[in-house]
């Protein structure tokens, strides 16, 4: 920091814009795909925010009572009702899969093909487990408790509507993620990122940064789940 030219740099607001704008790239050294994923996630954040804000608005304004979540989402274990049991397990599985994803990214950057592939695969299995448990939860609510998008026996009809829409939309995100995780597990095992094998659709080469990009998406889906969990099950 002894460069005398440093003093000639503009300061304040103008300095901020020069800092961002004067290089060839706005995010220095950031891969195109990674930057794109970040911006996409920002956009997707707005999608989920709109869903959740609409949910809060309606929940605050409905005239009927809102169903009591810890009862609706409870399970009976050996005759004892345990509130939020399934959701706790689901959340645990999903958060754990975020951990395995982080390890996959680490081994990817170490170019450790086998371990990277293994952890991508584990993440995919975690995601699949989550989707499976969600399917179980949905079928319990639909067939056992009689919850429908247009009404339910517990209270406000919007409960079922918002529940199925928001968890369904999140579940779709998880499912898409799981599909990509399986595809990328195969690509990693096959050594696509070491040999520079070209993509089937895009005909472009890729490398292990793809795993990090996939990881960004996966962590985002987990983070969204935390918010859904808090607003839907704990409120």
């Amino acid at each position: 920091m002894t460069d005398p030219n440093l003093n000639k740099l503009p300061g304040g607001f103008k300095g901020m814009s020069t800092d961002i704008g004067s290089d060839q790239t706005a995010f220095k050294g950031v891969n195109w795909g990674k930057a794109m994923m970040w911006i996409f996630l920002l956009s997707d954040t707005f999608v989920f925010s709109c869903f959740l804000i609409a949910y809060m608005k309606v929940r605050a304004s409905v005239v009927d009572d809102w169903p009591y979540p810890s009862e609706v989402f409870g399970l009976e274990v050996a005759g004892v009702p345990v509130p939020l049991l399934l959701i706790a397990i689901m959340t645990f599985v999903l958060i754990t899969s975020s951990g395995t994803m982080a390890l996959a990214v680490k081994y990817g950057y170490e170019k450790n093909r086998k371990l990277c592939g293994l952890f991508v695969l584990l993440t995919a299995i975690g995601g699949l487990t989550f989707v499976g448990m969600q399917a179980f939860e949905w079928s319990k609510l639909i067939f056992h408790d009689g919850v429908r998008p247009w009404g339910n026996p517990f209270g406000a009809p919007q409960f079922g509507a918002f529940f199925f829409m928001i968890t369904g939309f999140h579940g779709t995100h998880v499912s898409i993620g799981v599909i990509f995780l399986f595809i990328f597990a195969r690509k990693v095992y096959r050594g696509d990122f070491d040999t520079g094998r070209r993509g089937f659709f895009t005909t472009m080469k890729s490398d292990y940064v793809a795993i990090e990009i996939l990881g960004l998406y996966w962590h985002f889906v987990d983070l969204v789940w935390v918010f859904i969990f808090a607003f839907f099950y704990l409120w």
Partner: protein
Amino acid sequence: MLDDINKDKKHSSPRTKSSSISGGERDVDYVRPADIPDQELYHGHSFLTKWIFCQDAKVIGVQYTLTAVFTGVVGLILSWMMRMQLGFPELFPFLTAESYYQMVTMHGMIMVVYLLTALFLGGFGNYLIPLMVGARDMVFPYVNMVSFWMFFVAVVVLMASFFVPGGPTGAGWTLYPPQAIIEGTPGSGAGILLMLVSLSLFVIGFTMGGLNYVITILQARTRGMTLMRMPLTIWGIFTATVLALLAFPALFVSAIMMTLDKVLGTSFFMPVMMKAGELLAYDGGSPILFQHLFWFFGHPEVYIVALPAFGIVSDLISVHSRKNIFGYRMMVWAIVGIGALSFFVWAHHMYVSGMSPWFGFFFATTTLIIAVPTALKVYNWILTLWRGNIRINVVMLFCLGFIVTFVNGGITGIFLGNVIVDVPLSDTYFVIAHFHMVMGIAPLMVIFGAIYHWFPLITGRFLDEKLGKLHFWITFLGAYSIYFPMHYLGFIGVPRRYFEMYNSPYMPSTIGMNEFISIAVFVVGAAQFIFFFNVVKSIRLGKPSGKNPWKANSLEWLTPDVPPAHGNWGEKLPVVHRWAYDFSVPGAKEDYIPQTTPPSEVIEAEVEKT
């Protein structure tokens, strides 16, 4: 930055190096080495991969433009039919109240979303972004291609709604529930469903394209192209794309929720309702929630259309008055500021919706604040023209037309932004006049100006100037004949969206005026076919333009081939040394200095220092 300053010291002080750089030889590399490797491209080999599923942003841009213009022609024909009814009611028996509402709805949605948004961002964005920032293509050409085909499918679905039982939706382009999806509204069955599906597809397709535009601008610029050297066109398209990426989610969510209300019978937006004495199954939903979601999209949407127009018109004015843009940095910050503010004004569309008046107070304040950066831009355009070497060609005529219509529409916007003035004017023809002036005619003027400006780049030929001037004058004077009287109609209280109002005894003056407006609409609509004829004729027979016919500075005119080939730049990417506005520089040989001109060639000239 530090390197730049060092280099400035070494090379750009006049005279010091003049002996070593005679003849303008580019022996010194003034700009830092590239941060990013050269882009690898997929070159199509068959007709299918070259022209249909093409990954070249320029072809995709043309595809977007043609598809958007097609929808625009449909929208134009719909407006003709609407005006037939309003000007000469009962003359055309096929125009029923139901079909009138369907036309209003489809006209609005097509013009705002499928024409203007797709044309500015998909069309101009795809064509100009890689060329103007000096990239070989968009960063992810494959995704870009999918983006267009998603848009294409969205258009097909939208057009399909004309042919389903019950016809397209007639809920008004705002699609307000509950009436949009309950029986009694035209097209409340398949029509509204196809509309919602089409909008969702549009948003998905746009997101793919939009991510490409943003990342290309942020991460794939060529060497030396700093953000503050980008042409304002790029700034406008960039900011509009960011707005779109953040605003379309609200439209997407509201479309999904209304689809569920329609298909599954949920009650997100549907309150308790009686129909013909019977209670409907809906219960406890909130129609106002839809309005908030819709306008959280809807207001930024205005600027998604306006900001690219602002940017493009700045460049056109600068080039055709041979003067640097006045207050470039101000212009950039105004674009960014307008973009940011546009997210805090949405409820000014809802003053009469029954929301809290305090809410209206807040939104009136934020709305009026937007007038500040907007007015600043208008002053800057005028100051750019001031004492410039103005060429009154078709491009400049459209730019001047834009400034006039935009100021006109902006001033009526100040009326409508204030709650107390808006309440009596709300849902009258004053509103119609306002938004057609400000986001219909004004951006269209820019689109036409831009097409006359960039047509030589795309085809290598000029559009015909005489036909262009005819097109301009009919369009400009015609647009005023249409919308100026509508302000008056609004003041005397003629409500919008009414199929028929002649039986109202207190407004006899509307009869003649409506006939006049309708005739003007027929003429202006027909004049657009002069333009289409001009385009078709000039593609084959136009005057060859050669390279850089307007003597512009920005990179898109400096490609080795005209029209630019796939990959844009041949062997070597251009290197940028200055902003795009070095026109009429004192001491320079020519009245323009292209962005790639190194400092050594202009040592006598007083050029911009960055």
